[in-house]
């Protein structure tokens, strides 16, 4: 579906005409990210991160395929082949640093993409399916990133694998058999390493598939926008190409400058030194931490330190950690406000900036810090707020909040007036 004023693909060149008849792929691209896709004209730079996430997915697949040409998933040699890539393979060091930091950048842009969604309530009808698929992508990314981190077979790889699979051991009764089954042994070894490699190679293509569904679902209602007012007329939109291709091109340039600055000048800053020590099943690092992009969830996991009634602390931590993401699936139905954009929601906005963002910042920081006071206590408060925010505050605020008046249309929001606007009707959309 698209807006009635969307431009029709009309190939002029005979080769493209041939394709359009036999396999309308050019038409598909034209309608997806070309001039045939009308997009709200008021998208801010926060709307760049979807395209950037797609770029980093491709980058990870390309560099990953290259690394897989030189890497061997065997506990005897995995660490050595990684070093072989760093030392002997032509441009191997660049490929590996690009892949390791590419994962970080993938998560950075995806987090910004998700927080864009939180603030502008992009999850709301009619875009629930886009949001649900997005959460699926995020879960797949986390699984992929976790397994990828195990592959170099350093100390953090090994102990990360052990600790994370150990989470399943918290499940009553079946936990331990599940852990042994996941690892194919009693501790991470060849069996685990090989299956992680296999899945780490497979999952990105699954992600790519879900990304296609995500974009497909996006093209049904069209993109949301910072006002949250739906597109009403042609003057509310601009064709994706050239307007947003140009804007995304510039955004990509900025992202790449930051990314390559990291790759070439600070490639190990986001990593942990212990992963340059070969895996040793007999010696645990002083301080096991996952990669930075897992820190908020790791902090939630560790926030539950005391058994509560009949629930063991460990089980509660595991449930809360997985739950903290799974609750995103329900957001479209928890937030009842008729207004999408946080710009027009005074209470929601305050809770977002002074509640959720600080709580996430605390969780990020504490997840990377040692399990000591005051970090544990801080993450306990932040964890409590995190769940309250999504499960209690959002449902209640969306019920009682009085939204501010909305512009009549996107055109009015951008240009200050819209001929088609009817006097006194501006606030009507909110009702």
């Amino acid at each position, binding site marked *: 579906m698209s807006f009635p004023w969307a431009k029709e693909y009309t190939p002029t060149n005979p080769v493209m005409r041939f394709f359009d008849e036999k396999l309308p792929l050019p038409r598909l691209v034209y309608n997806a990210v070309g001039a045939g896709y009308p997009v709200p*004209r008021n998208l801010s730079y926060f709307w760049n991160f979807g395209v950037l996430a797609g770029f980093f997915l491709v980058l990870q697949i390309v560099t990953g395929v290259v690394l897989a040409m030189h890497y061997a998933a065997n506990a005897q040699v995995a660490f050595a082949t990684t*070093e072989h890539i*760093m*030392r002997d393979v032509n441009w191997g*060091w660049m490929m590996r*640093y690009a892949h390791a930091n590419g994962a970080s950048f993938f998560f950075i842009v995806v987090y910004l993409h998700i927080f864009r969604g939180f603030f502008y309530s992009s999850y709301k009808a009619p875009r629930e399916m886009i949001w649900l698929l997005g959460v699926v992508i995020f879960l797949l990314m986390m699984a992929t990133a976790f397994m990828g981190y195990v592959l170099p077979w350093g100390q953090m790889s090994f102990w990360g694998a052990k600790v994370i699979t150990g989470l399943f051991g918290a499940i009553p009764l079946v936990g331990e058999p599940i852990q042994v089954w996941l690892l194919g042994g009693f501790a991470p070894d060849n069996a685990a390493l090989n299956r992680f490699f296999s899945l780490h190679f497979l999952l990105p293509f699954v992600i790519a598939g879900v990304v296609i569904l995500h974009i497909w679902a996006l093209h049904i209602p069209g993109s949301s926008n910072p006002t949250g007012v739906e597109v009403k007329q042609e003057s509310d939109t*601009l064709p994706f190409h*050239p*307007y947003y291709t*140009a*804007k995304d*091109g*510039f955004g*990509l*340039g*900025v992202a*790449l*400058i930051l990314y*390559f*600055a990291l790759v*070439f*000048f600070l*490639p190990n800053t986001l990593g942990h*030194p*212990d992963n*340059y*020590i*070969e895996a040793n099943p007999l010696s645990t690092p*002083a301080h096991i931490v996952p990669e930075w992009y897992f820190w908020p969830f790791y902090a939630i996991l560790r*926030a*539950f*330190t*005391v058994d*509560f009634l009949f629930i063991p602390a460990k089980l509660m931590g595991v449930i*809360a950690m997985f739950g903290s993401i799974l*609750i995103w699936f*329900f957001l479209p*139905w*928890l937030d*009842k406000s008729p207004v999408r954009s946080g710009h027009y929601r005074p209470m929601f906005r305050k809770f977002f900036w002074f509640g959720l963002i600080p709580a996430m910042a605390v969780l990020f920081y504490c997840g990377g810090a040692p399990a*000591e*006071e*005051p970090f*544990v*206590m801080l993450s*306990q*408060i932040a*964890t*409590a*707020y995190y*769940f309250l925010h*999504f*499960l*209690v505050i959002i*449902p*209640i605020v969306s019920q009682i909040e009085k939204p501010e008046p909305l512009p009549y249309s996107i055109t009015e929001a*951008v*240009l*200050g*007036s819209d001929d088609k606007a009817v006097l006194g009707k501006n606030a009507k959309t909110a009702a």
Partner: protein
Amino acid sequence: MTKLLSIRLVAILVGLGFAVVALYSFVVGAYAAITEEAPAHLPYEEPRDIAYSFDGPFGKWDVQQLQRGFKVYNEVCSACHSLKFVAFRDLEQIGYDEGQVKAFAASKQVPGIDPNTGEATTRPGLPTDYFPSPYPNNVAAAAANNNAIPPDLSLMTKARHDGTNYVASLLMGYQEPSAELLAEHPEAAPAPGLHHNPYFPNLNLAMAPPLTTAGQVTFDDGTEATIEQMATDVAAFLTWTAEPTLVKRKQTGWPVLIFLLFATVLAYFSKKQIWAATKRKAA
């Protein structure tokens, strides 16, 4: 509508549940924090900040320094520490010629096979061989070192926070524990066979001071071999062994960044121009 309401009711209850359990943990933890004394950390020192030629975005190797550091490794460290990811051929990158590398490789015995009997034996090294380990396996290494296995040094400077400075500081840092430290932390006193070092996280290190006297190594370039000189040079050498491509990485980075900056500026003006017409205010 009622169904949706019930979803939100369930959510509110679940949310309150999570919050209550988290806050319960908080209260118990806070009570413990007030009533019990947290186990104190032994106060170790951050590595000293030493200036190296390869620091910073324009850094380059100081080949003389790498060669001096190599000599320190070869004459001191290699008695106990392996360097298993470095091949003799790699030494050509720090300014040795093919002949010198061949001669050095041949002076080392590496594991081999007797061509007549098939028995395990040793043979002189070739440039393609890797630095041999001083011990045949970890069990032998532990047995010879009071159960502390000397770690491989190939990646040491990347395997520690601020690794280059850490290695240098550690090598220069051996000293007797101060009286104040022992008064405050009696457990910090070195056990038999351990050595006090303020840069080592638990202050007690199994490795005996390896650099003990000035002039322990004679440098080919005539540099005076003070302990500080040997320690900084070997730390520089181990930075090279940890990442031989470090300088090439930085040198590749500049053209990439300059090109991207140029392309991004172009993209910015291109975007601005494309969008110019849409920004016109209504008349």
